[in-house]
């Protein structure tokens, strides 16, 4: 098992190397209370097969990464990602895929390090804004209210969780809520913008949304925050697209990546 020390935290990392020489690096960022397994079970192998050097890691506090008490905000997560890229010796541009919170982290990284990101795919994610933090706080409050009732959590996710997943989700949420400051950190509004200036994101962007998800109901507002981008809606699905619509996600991701595999980050404007 590979671990990398990044930003003072020991992170669990796995690579699915491409058979193609000089394959561009692709970093997969999972969601809250999840692990890299969400990608490993779904699109990781196909993305590697497309000719990417796939790097998946567990966020701090998750999976087999270290669980420090603090440092769970979007900027700390971005610093963890930046440190990981440096520690792995990746010096060129990277491609990023993020699901849910992982997509929000990917947005933040692309905003802070525009010269490092060749392309960005976000699944059921939006960029970090004050309004996003407030909505996320509401969602975490809802989850907290049902931590002792996995079946209610499953119902709250509109039937999109199988019971075994709901039990594990609530157990992990309890563990993290007790042993870390994650709940407070994730929704910390410090440094978050209300809106973004035009041109804030300069890499090619693909947004994938479940047709029945809460985010889809606000899709126009989300797209309004973004530069021109490609949007794919997966009909009939809720938030958990990697778990329950992996083939539809792959059908959106793979052709898009095939055309953006050689994308380069925008030149640095001084």
């Amino acid at each position, binding site marked *: 098992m590979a671990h990398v020390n990044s930003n003072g935290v020991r992170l*669990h990392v796995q690579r699915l190397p491409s058979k193609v020489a000089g394959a561009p690096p692709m970093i997969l960022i999972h969601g809250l209370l999840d*692990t*890299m*397994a969400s990608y*490993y079970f779904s*699109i990781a*192998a196909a993305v590697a097969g497309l000719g990417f050097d796939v790097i998946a890691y567990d966020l701090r506090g998750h999976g087999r990464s270290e669980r420090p008490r603090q440092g769970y905000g979007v900027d700390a997560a971005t610093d963890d990602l930046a440190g990981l890229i440096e520690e792995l010796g990746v010096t060129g541009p990277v491609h990023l895929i993020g699901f849910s919170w992982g997509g929000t982290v990917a947005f933040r990284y692309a905003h802070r390090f525009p010269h490092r990101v060749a392309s960005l795919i976000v699944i059921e994610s939006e960029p970090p804004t004050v309004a996003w933090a407030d909505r996320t706080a509401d969602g975490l409050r809802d989850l907290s209210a049902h931590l002792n009732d996995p079946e209610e959590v499953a119902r709250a996710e509109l039937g999109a969780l199988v019971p075994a997943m709901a039990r594990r989700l609530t157990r992990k949420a309890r563990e993290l809520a007790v042993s870390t400051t994650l709940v407070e950190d994730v929704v910390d509004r410090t440094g978050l913008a209300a809106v973004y200036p035009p041109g804030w994101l300069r890499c090619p962007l693909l947004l994938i949304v479940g047709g029945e998800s809460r985010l889809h109901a606000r899709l126009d507002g989300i797209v309004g925050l973004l530069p021109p981008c490609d949007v794919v809606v997966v009909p009939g699905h809720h938030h958990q697209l990697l778990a*329950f619509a992996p083939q539809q996600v792959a059908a959106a991701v793979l052709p898009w990546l095939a055309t953006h595999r050689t994308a380069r980050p925008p030149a640095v404007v001084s």
Partner: protein
Amino acid sequence: MTTETVLAEIGDLIRQVLDGYDIDAVPITPDTSFDADLAFESIDLVVLGTLLTERYGPGIDLAGFLSTRSLPEIITLRVGDLAGYVTARLEHA
């Protein structure tokens, strides 16, 4: 390599993944469920996948194998399913 040999070796790898798991308490058979019997977390399967590739070579692609299965099928995966996959891949290598 026979399925029995592969099964025994996978048992050793499972013990590594779970680090301290008492292999005599729950004997590992083809019917052993990763979820129900071994309390495997999803991330444990990822680690097992890397150990399998280290042991048997890049032809053993657990990520590729699992990506052809639905989540309920992954949750109900049994050791015998994995041993069968490894054995078949080794035969075709």
